[in-house]
């Protein structure tokens, strides 16, 4: 059989991973199917729902629309890498306190988007939060509580 895989080196949550992948493998499937990092969710596989949001070099990216090979040599952060030394990230803590989720399936993506949204400076008002969090669908309808959680975390960062 001809060689159909390529070596891909991924830096995820500060850990280095060496994988042998077909070039068509998405970052999302590499995370979920090859590395057991299932915190990043697959909701549509077409960039429509936001459940697969991760950070690459600090920016929010849809892992289902990113080939794993495209992320080589760049710093990938997933939901599993957000809490530091067992301390929840302030956005995670705010999501729990505000009950900003129900089923939890969109939550990883919401939290990763929210962290970036605040970092981008797009959490200045509820209106702005709603707009810049609109790419992450939540069918349980936690939106008002997501807004409250992002607002709370943004204020903690500003303080």
């Amino acid at each position, binding site marked *: 059989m001809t060689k159909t895989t390529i070596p891909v080196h991924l830096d995820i949550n500060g850990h280095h991973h060496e994988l042998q992948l077909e070039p068509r493998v998405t970052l999302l499937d590499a995370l979920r199917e090859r590395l057991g990092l299932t915190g990043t969710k697959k909701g549509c596989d077409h960039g429509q729902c936001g459940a697969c949001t991760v950070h690459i070099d600090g920016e929010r990216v849809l892992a289902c629309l990113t080939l794993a090979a495209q992320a080589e040599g760049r710093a990938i952060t997933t939901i599993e890498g957000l809490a530091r030394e067992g301390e929840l990230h302030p956005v995670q803590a705010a999501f*729990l306190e505000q009950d900003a989720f129900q089923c939890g*399936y969109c939550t990883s993506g919401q939290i990763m988007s929210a962290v970036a949204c605040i970092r981008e400076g797009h959490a200045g008002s509820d209106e702005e939060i709603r707009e810049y969090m*609109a790419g992450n669908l939540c*069918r349980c*309808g936690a*939106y*008002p509580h997501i807004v409250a959680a992002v607002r709370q975390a943004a204020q903690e960062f500003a303080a």
Partner: protein
Amino acid sequence: MTVHNIRVGQSKRGDASDGTLAEAIGGRLSRVDGPAKITGAAKYAVEQQLEGLVHAVLVESTIASGKVRVIDAAAAEAAPGVLQVLTPDTIISLKTAADWFGTPPPDKPYCPLARDITFSGQHVAAVVAETFEQAVAAAALVKVSYDETPSIVDLSDGKAGDGIPIDAMTKEWGDASTAFASAPVRICAAYNTPREYQAPMEPHGLVARWEGDHLTVWEPSQWLDGMARTYAEWFGIPFGNVRLVSPYIGGGFGSKALALSHGAVAACAARMLRRPVKLVMTRPQTFTGYGGRAATRQTVTIGADRDGVIQSIVHRGVNETSMDGMWVEPLGSVTSIMYATPNFSSKQNVVRVNSVVPGAMRAPGENPSAFGIESAIDELAYEVGIDPLEIRLRNYAEQDPHAKKAWSTRQLREAFAAGAERFGWARRSPEPRSMRDGNQLIGWGVAAGTYPVRRAYGEAVVRILADGSVEVESSSIDMGQGTYTILAQTAAETVGVPADNVVVKLGDSRFPRAGVTGGSRLAGVMTGAVYKAATSALDQLVGLAISDPRSPFHALQANTLVVANGRIASPRGDGPDVSIAELLNSVGRDHIEAKGDTMPANSTAEDRYKNYTTIAMSVPHTEGDYSRHSWCAHFIEVRVDEDFGTVRVSRVVSALDSGRLYNPKLAESQWKGGIIMGIGQALLEEGIVDRRHGRIVNDNLADYLVPTNADIPDIEVISVGIPDLHASVLGGKGVGELAIVGIAPAIANAVFHATGKRIRDLPITLEKLI
């Protein structure tokens, strides 16, 4: 261990502003499964990492009606990594399983891959390969040719006809047509709702693994025992040989209660290949792999006197079903109970179209029913010139007009009052188009909603362990409603331990059984079962403490002891004060275990099996002397752009009666979720059918529009419920489905108030307003 297993103490508490301790029943304890969900640690069903796992991808029909002529699988079979292509000719044969009522099935084989096509998107083949990518690529190489026949694409198809009368849906009293004919005020209108889809964020899928004749299925499930029964019947193996595991469910909204054909395909593939198989639907497949809410048509005629007092309601409804399945969406369910009327008639037909059989979606029946009657009464209000809130009070049903029984509780009047006060309804200018802000027309609308209290039975085990902690087990599930949390609260309060010391394990069919999580029944059922089991465990604990010769309380000769905060003491305050762990240690016990259930006394094993694996034993909401329902009133403000006809919901105040709330923080979230799904239904959601091939054109999340964060304003919910002990052991009524009921008509009514245009056809999109 695949089950959820988190201690309450890892989560933050809610506030205790209402005076209730957060961890007691009724307290605002934060979700105990929250830490797992916010850190990505929560493993959903298909995320199991199994040795030797292979991947299956479905191939679906591209016609709506006809026969498969040939499936050419040669190219797919030759593709890299492919292990097997399953077709109707190669897949192993299954037996037909009973339906969810437990009706004995016909003795004929069941094939989850179709030769005879009755809808577009039907599974015709599946490809199994070593990797997901290989399976996806090979599935695209499967060539299917068809002999296509004409199809009936939807209700508006000229070939659809009037359908089949469903006599069981007929509700009549008085003489509705005569009373209507003689009424001084008469209104008549038709109301339509389109196909709508549950669209849970987690797509349907499963991992199936065989070990000999034992099947384990990791699958998101609203009903472990019912689905396990179906798998067992398909494969002709004992019920006990099937284990369903579903620790977390990424949203269901009615769609994950039944074992479906894709599950059969995956389980067959696993059996044929002797390897665990993972099959997850693509997002487009979730629009045809199971049914969403059926499209509906209703006509509502109301005859009233000039004061707006209803004399007669005549209601006719139609919903679509599939060619070979039967789905009845009970369209007269709200129509027949919301308002007092001396004369009433409701009838319903079902029309067969080339669609997947429709299914349950949040408040099936009540939701479209309320769109009809709650729009119609608004039309009557304008016809007679009475405030839309006032006309609802004027026709208030003091008892169930259909069952002729007293309400167990009906805080609807209180809901109208509380909602109106908070919303500022009294400041509403009655005339349409009379309120505006620049080029935005402002409209205020009101509508009521209701959902019956569906009751069933459940079991739970409560264990008090040697370290003083408490463990709860049940095969019920948590798809976001908060089952983990409220059962921890129930066990903690009943036994008398801190909620930190309770571990709740759900989502495994090996645990004590539970019926379907649907119809908003689970919280009432399971808090009752856990309460009983925990009470029994507590009795054992206290009994041991009083009577065991080794107990430090033995000499006290007390009649009873008090357990609180994990410690045991005499109620008089004399004698010892020891921890549960110390007591168990002193009497030489490593645990105390009690099973509790809410089944009637003398239930046989057969009764129990039937109760947990079918819905045949659900208790009618009108059983005995009372009619039991949740109630709500929604007050909604919309802003309609006068030039473009775009509608924005700008304010929502809803007052709801779900009886006693086991955890208001989580109940409020569910209510808001229902309201938001209702906003989607009112303004966005519609399955669009291609008229040539009967395909759902917008079968994805970019084209089937669900609400985004930017579509949703702040939402205020107010609880007006009181404990209803006719409804459940601890006094709660249904929460999850109630709040969506009445949202769409409240918005349509607000849009009429804003624009003077009555939209009777959902969703309310801009082209209908300009």
